């Protein structure tokens, strides 16, 4: 028998008032996978992430982590937020040490970990800066580092690079793959960028605009390591990106709104 999956979702639904945000979603995640949840805004991808994080409970269905239902948030499923959600009153180092100090880890040991993590996320020497002294890219690095220091089994990322400019975003994506290679922790990555999803993931789940079901899942079979920056022009990469775009466009009612302008001519 195969080992139990790290995360298992069976017919997970989530309703909010009268609206169904997620409708019977099922999937499994294994160790060290990088999976992207891709979809337009309002498709329920962030809700799914919140369910895995334990901020909310599914209305029906089963959501199992390591074979046990998820009931509360915890450091084994830590979240990186789009806004960064850094603690403005703490330095980069103190932010990274947050989970350790909550657990009462001794100062010297915390220091060792944060030193290591700061280097891993490319912020060596910047540990004393406060969030307001950092650029957007640096803040997201701290956000990732803060989660890495908690040693999660799954790192949940909610559009973490959406607010930074393209150059920084591409650099951060490449760094994330490096970090993944170093830590081997499973990553669930929410994004609305097709290119980002394809670049980062082993698998891409596309969510439909309404109704919150999976439209399609794509396996990304691109050679690793991908962080030399050239794979973004790989024909296979571009073809996959195109295929996903067409799938999303076909499944989206918004596509008809866009076509209305053509109808006027």
């Amino acid at each position, binding site marked *: 028998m195969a080992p139990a999956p790290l995360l298992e979702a069976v017919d997970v639904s989530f309703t909010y008032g009268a609206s169904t945000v997620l409708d019977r979603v099922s999937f499994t995640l294994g160790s060290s996978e990088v999976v992207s949840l891709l979809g337009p805004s309002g498709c329920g991808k962030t809700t799914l992430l919140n369910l895995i*994080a*334990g*901020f909310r409970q599914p209305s029906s269905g089963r959501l199992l982590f390591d074979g046990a239902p998820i009931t*509360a*948030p*915890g*450091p084994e*499923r*830590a*979240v990186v*937020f789009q*806004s960064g*959600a850094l*603690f*403005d*009153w703490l330095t980069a180092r103190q932010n990274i040490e*947050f*989970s350790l100090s*909550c*657990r009462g880890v001794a100062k010297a040991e915390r220091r060792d970990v944060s030193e290591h993590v700061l280097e891993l996320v490319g912020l060596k020497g910047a540990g004393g800066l*406060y*969030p*307001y002294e950092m650029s957007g890219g640096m803040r997201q690095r701290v956000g990732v580092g*803060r*989660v890495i220091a*908690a040693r999660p089994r799954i790192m*949940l990322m909610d559009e973490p690079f959406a607010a930074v400019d393209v150059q920084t975003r591409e650099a951060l994506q490449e760094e994330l793959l490096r970090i993944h290679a170093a830590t081997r922790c499973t990553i669930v990555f929410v994004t609305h960028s097709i290119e980002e999803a394809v670049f980062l993931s082993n698998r891409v789940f596309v969510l439909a605009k309404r109704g919150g079901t999976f439209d399609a899942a794509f396996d990304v079979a691109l050679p690793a390591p991908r962080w030399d920056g050239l794979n973004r022009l790989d024909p296979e990469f571009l073809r996959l990106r195109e295929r996903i775009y067409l799938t999303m466009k076909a499944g989206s009612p918004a596509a008809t709104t866009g076509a209305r302008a053509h109808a006027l001519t």
Partner: protein
Amino acid sequence: MPSPRSHLALVLASPLMLLLAWDGATRFSLVEQILLPAPATIGAALWDVLTRGYAGVSVFVHIGTSLWRVLTAFLLAAFVGVSLGLLRGLYPRIDAVCLVPFELIRPIPPLAFIPLFILWFGIGEVSKVLIIFYYAMLVVMLNTQAGVASCPEDKIRAARSLGASPWQVFWRVVFPASLPHVVVGLRVALAAALSILVASELLGGDRGLGFVISDASTFFKTADVFVGIVLIGLIGLIADRALTFTARRIVHWEGKT
């Protein structure tokens, strides 16, 4: 746009012009000295009051009395207000219990309570301090509560997902996040406290800067009225600047992105 130098000149010139106009108006008897004494007269009165005191009491006793009243009340109000505000922000039950009584007394100008407080606590120091305390506390409490409510959900979620206990979420996240609002509340409360202090001293007692103003005006010693006003303004200015300075040190991240 003016150059930096002419900008500075304008900034300095406007109060100077005002002072000159004032002096001129009094010198040429455009206004009666009894209504608006010349700046020099006020300066002399200030020196006189500083060296010889007012109403047979050293001016520093008046200043000290006023300061004691306002600082005692303000510090008490800060402590109680922050504590109550945090409790109301965190526990909906406590908030529900507090809501109606506080909402009912909130719009009543604190001065309206003076007669009642005098009835309750007598005419002495206690009622003056308590009336300042009561209103300043209300302001601090409401701002603190708003601060707790303003803590971004993302930050709370981040802390929980990093393994913080409810107590750690409060102490390490919600509390620091609400500090900027607390500071605003303290500043507003300080200004209000000073107003109430003066008002209550105007209405009764024989010590304090409010008494100086009120007493001087009954004897038409207008220059001394101005001295009292200037001293109160100075106290207000220094207190506000000191509070802002301290707050910037503590809440150093506020207003920066």
